[in-house]
C-alpha cells in the first residue's frame, strides 16, 4: 500500500489524524504521569511463588486484626505487593514491601513547615517488613519507618534505594513498629553508622497535636518526640440543580505522637522483635507443619526446602533409566517432612506401579522410565482421586503427588480447589472411569502420549486439560535438583506461572 504523508490527506482527514495522535499522546502522558506515592522497590524482583507465600501468611486474620485496630496510626496503609524486594540478612529472608498510603502519612522528627510539607513528606518512608527464618520458616512482621536527617541528600541516594540493614551513607532514624502500630525499637544513624539506640518511652498519644518544638537531648540519653502526619481531604459536591463542580479541600495535620528514648550506642540497625515473637505462625499448629500452609504454592515452596523430600526425589531420579517404575508413599512427621516412607516398584518392562495403602498417607511419588510419559498419566490422576474418595489422604489440603521422568521432567500435582476436586473425584469413582480419563488425555486436542510428542507439548496439553476439565488440581514444574517448584497455567497459547494468589484451602 502506498504511504501518504500526513499533509497530503484532505483537511478533514488531517484533522482526524491529528485528533488520533493527540489522544494517543494524552493517553500516554496520563498513564505515565499517574501519581503513585508508594515507594518504588523493583530490584531484585521476588519470584511469584515467594511473594504469594509471604502474602498468604501476611493476610492471615491475626495480622489483619492487628493493623486494623482502631488506635493504630498505621491502620489506613496496606501492602503494595507489586513492589517488593527481598534479601538475606543473617539467617533470615527479609521481604520489604512498599505500602499503599492513601492519606500520605509520614513521620517527622523536627518542626514541620506547613508551606513546605511535601518536602518533609519526601524525607520519610514507611515500608512493611516480613522476616522468614531460614531454619524454621517461621515468619514475623513489622513496619520500618525511616526519617532522613536534615543533612541527608535524598536526591543523591533516595530512601527507596535503602534497605533493611543496608543503609549505605544514610543519616537519620530507622524505627520499627509492630503491626498494631506500637514502637518496638529503632536507631539513629550518621553516614550509615549507628550512633544511638532508640527504645519506647511509653508516652505516646493520639490526637490533633500542635506542631510544637520537639525536645532532643541524646547525650548520653534523651527523649525526642516524633510527629506522625496525615492528609485528610473533603470533597463537597455541587448543590443539585445549581450547577458548578465538586471541590476537594485537603488539610495536613499531625495525628499521632511517638516519644522515644535515644541512648548513645552502636548496633546493627536491625529489628528486635518483642518477646513472644511479635506475630508468628498459627499457635494451634506447629509453625513448620504444612497444615499451617493452606496455600498449595506455599506448600510447594516448603517442599523445595525439605531435605527429605528432595532426597527421596533424587533417589527416584537416579532410577529413571531402569526399565521398571519406582516410587514411595509416605506420611509426614509433625514438621511436615516425609518419614517412614514405603518404597514400591513395578514389574520389569511393565508400565505402571501398584501399591496398596491401608492407612492414610500424605503423598506419593514415582518414576516414569525411558519411553513412558513425560508427565502424569491418567492413572496417576485417577489414583489421587481414589485416595481422596476412599479417605486415604491424611489431609487433602496438603496432599502431594510427584513424578520424575526419564524425559528430564519433574512435576507435582496438588489440589488447589477442594470443591472442584471433590466433584471431579466423584466423576472418577468407578474403576471404568480410568479408561474414560485416559481416552480424554490421549485424544485430540490434548494428545498426551509417550511417543511422537515433546515434553513441552505434553505439559501444555496436560495443563490445558486440568483447566478445561475443572479438576481442582494445579501442576507445579520442578527444576532438576528439586529446589524450586513453579505453579503453571496455560494462557494465550503459552505456559505461564500461576501463583496461588488468594488461595486459602479450607474444608
Amino acid at each position, binding site marked *: 500500500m502506498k504511504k501518504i504523508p500526513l499533509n497530503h490527506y484532505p483537511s*478533514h482527514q488531517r*484533522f*482526524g489524524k491529528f*485528533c*488520533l495522535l493527540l489522544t494517543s499522546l494524552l493517553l500516554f502522558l496520563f498513564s505515565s504521569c499517574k501519581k503513585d506515592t508508594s515507594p518504588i522497590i523493583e530490584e531484585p524482583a521476588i519470584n511469584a511463588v515467594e511473594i504469594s507465600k509471604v502474602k498468604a501468611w501476611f493476610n492471615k486474620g491475626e495480622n489483619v486484626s492487628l493493623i486494623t485496630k482502631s488506635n493504630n496510626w498505621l491502620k489506613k496503609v496496606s501492602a503494595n505487593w507489586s513492589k517488593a524486594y527481598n534479601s538475606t540478612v543473617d539467617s533470615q529472608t527479609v521481604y520489604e514491601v512498599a505500602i499503599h498510603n492513601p492519606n500520605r502519612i509520614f513521620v517527622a522528627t523536627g518542626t514541620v513547615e506547613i508551606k513546605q510539607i511535601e518536602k518533609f513528606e519526601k524525607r520519610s518512608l514507611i515500608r512493611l517488613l516480613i522476616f522468614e527464618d531460614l531454619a524454621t520458616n517461621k515468619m514475623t512482621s513489622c513496619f520500618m519507618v525511616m526519617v532522613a536527617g536534615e543533612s541527608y541528600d535524598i536526591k543523591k541516594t533516595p530512601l527507596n534505594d535503602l534497605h533493611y540493614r543496608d543503609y549505605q551513607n544514610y543519616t537519620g532514624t530507622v524505627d520499627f513498629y509492630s503491626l498494631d502500630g506500637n514502637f518496638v525499637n529503632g536507631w539513629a544513624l550518621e553516614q550509615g553508622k549507628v550512633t544511638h539506640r532508640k527504645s519506647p518511652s511509653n508516652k505516646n498519644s493520639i490526637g490533633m497535636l500542635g506542631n510544637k518544638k520537639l525536645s532532643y537531648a541524646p547525650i548520653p540519653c534523651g527523649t525526642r518526640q516524633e510527629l506522625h502526619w496525615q492528609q485528610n481531604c473533603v470533597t463537597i459536591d455541587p448543590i443539585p440543580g445549581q450547577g458548578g463542580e465538586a471541590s476537594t479541600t485537603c488539610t495536613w495535620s499531625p495525628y499521632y505522637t511517638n516519644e522515644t528514648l535515644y541512648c548513645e550506642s552502636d548496633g546493627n540497625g536491625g529489628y528486635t522483635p518483642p518477646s513472644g515473637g511479635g506475630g508468628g505462625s498459627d499457635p494451634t499448629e506447629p509453625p513448620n507443619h504444612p497444615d499451617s500452609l493452606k496455600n498449595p504454592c506455599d506448600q510447594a515452596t516448603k517442599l523445595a526446602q525439605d531435605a527429605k523430600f528432595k532426597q527421596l526425589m533424587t533417589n527416584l531420579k537416579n532410577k529413571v533409566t531402569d526399565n521398571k517404575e519406582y*516410587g514411595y508413599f509416605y506420611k509426614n512427621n509433625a514438621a511436615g517432612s516425609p518419614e517412614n516412607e514405603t518404597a514400591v516398584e*513395578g*514389574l520389569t518392562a*511393565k*508400565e*505402571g*506401579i*501398584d*501399591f*496398596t*495403602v491401608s492407612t492414610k498417607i500424605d503423598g*506419593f511419588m*514415582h518414576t516414569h522410565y525411558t519411553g*513412558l*510419559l513425560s508427565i*502424569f*498419566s*491418567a*492413572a*496417576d490422576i*485417577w*489414583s489421587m482421586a*481414589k*485416595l481422596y474418595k*476412599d479417605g*486415604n489422604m491424611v489431609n487433602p489440603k496438603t496432599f502431594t*503427588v510427584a513424578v520424575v521422568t526419564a524425559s528430564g521432567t519433574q512435576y507435582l500435582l496438588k489440589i488447589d480447589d477442594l470443591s472442584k476436586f471433590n466433584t471431579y473425584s466423584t*466423576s472418577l469413582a*468407578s*474403576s*471404568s472411569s*480410568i*479408561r*474414560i*480419563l*485416559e*481416552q*480424554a488425555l*490421549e*485424544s*485430540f*486436542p*490434548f*494428545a498426551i*502420549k509417550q511417543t*511422537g510428542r515433546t515434553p513441552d507439548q505434553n505439559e*501444555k*496439553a496436560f495443563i*490445558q*486439560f486440568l483447566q*478445561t*476439565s475443572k479438576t481442582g488440581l494445579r501442576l507445579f514444574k520442578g527444576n532438576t535438583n528439586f529446589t524450586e517448584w513453579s505453579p503453571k497455567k*496455560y494462557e*494465550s*497459547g503459552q505456559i505461564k506461572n500461576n501463583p496461588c494468589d488468594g488461595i486459602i484451602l479450607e474444608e
Partner: protein
Amino acid sequence: MKKQLIIITLFMLNAALAKAQDPTFPPPGTNFPNPSLDQFVGTWSWTNGSDTLKIKLKKVNYLDMAGYTRDALIGYHYYKKAGTLIESSFTHINSAYTEYKHTLLLSNTSGQGDSVLTGGMDDLTKNKSFSIRLDVNLVQHTMAMKITEVSGVRVNTPTPYVFTIPNNITLTKQ
C-alpha cells in the same frame, strides 16, 4: 473521523478476539467427528475350542471429560471359557453411552493410524479397567488384540497383569 474510529474499534475487537482464540485447544463444546470409525462397527469374535470371546462395537458421539463432543467406539463383550459363561456385558448391548453399561471405549484418534484402535476395557470379574490395543486388518477383517495394565500409579487395585479374558488373540469380524 467517524470512519477511522470505526476502523480502529473493529481492529481492536479483532485483535481481542484473535487473542482469545487458541488454535491448539479449541473451546469446549467443539465436536470432533470421526467417520473412519464406521468400518469397525460390528461384532468381532475369537474361538479356541470351547473358549469364546465376542466383542460388539458401535459408534457413538459423546461428551468427554474436557467438555468436547467426539465420535468414539463403545463396545460390549462376552466371554465363555470351557463352555461356561465367565462374564458378559451383552445384556446391555442396546444401552446408551450415558448409561455407562458398555465395557469398552475405543478410538483411533491417538495418531497411530486409522487401523489401530486404542482405549480401555473393563474386567468385570476382577473389577478393574485395563488398556487395550486392536490392530485391525481391514482386508482380512481381523483384529489382533493386546491388553496391558493402565500405565501409571494404581492404588488399591487387584493383582496386576492378571486378566480374565485371554491376551494376544486375533478376532474376526462376523
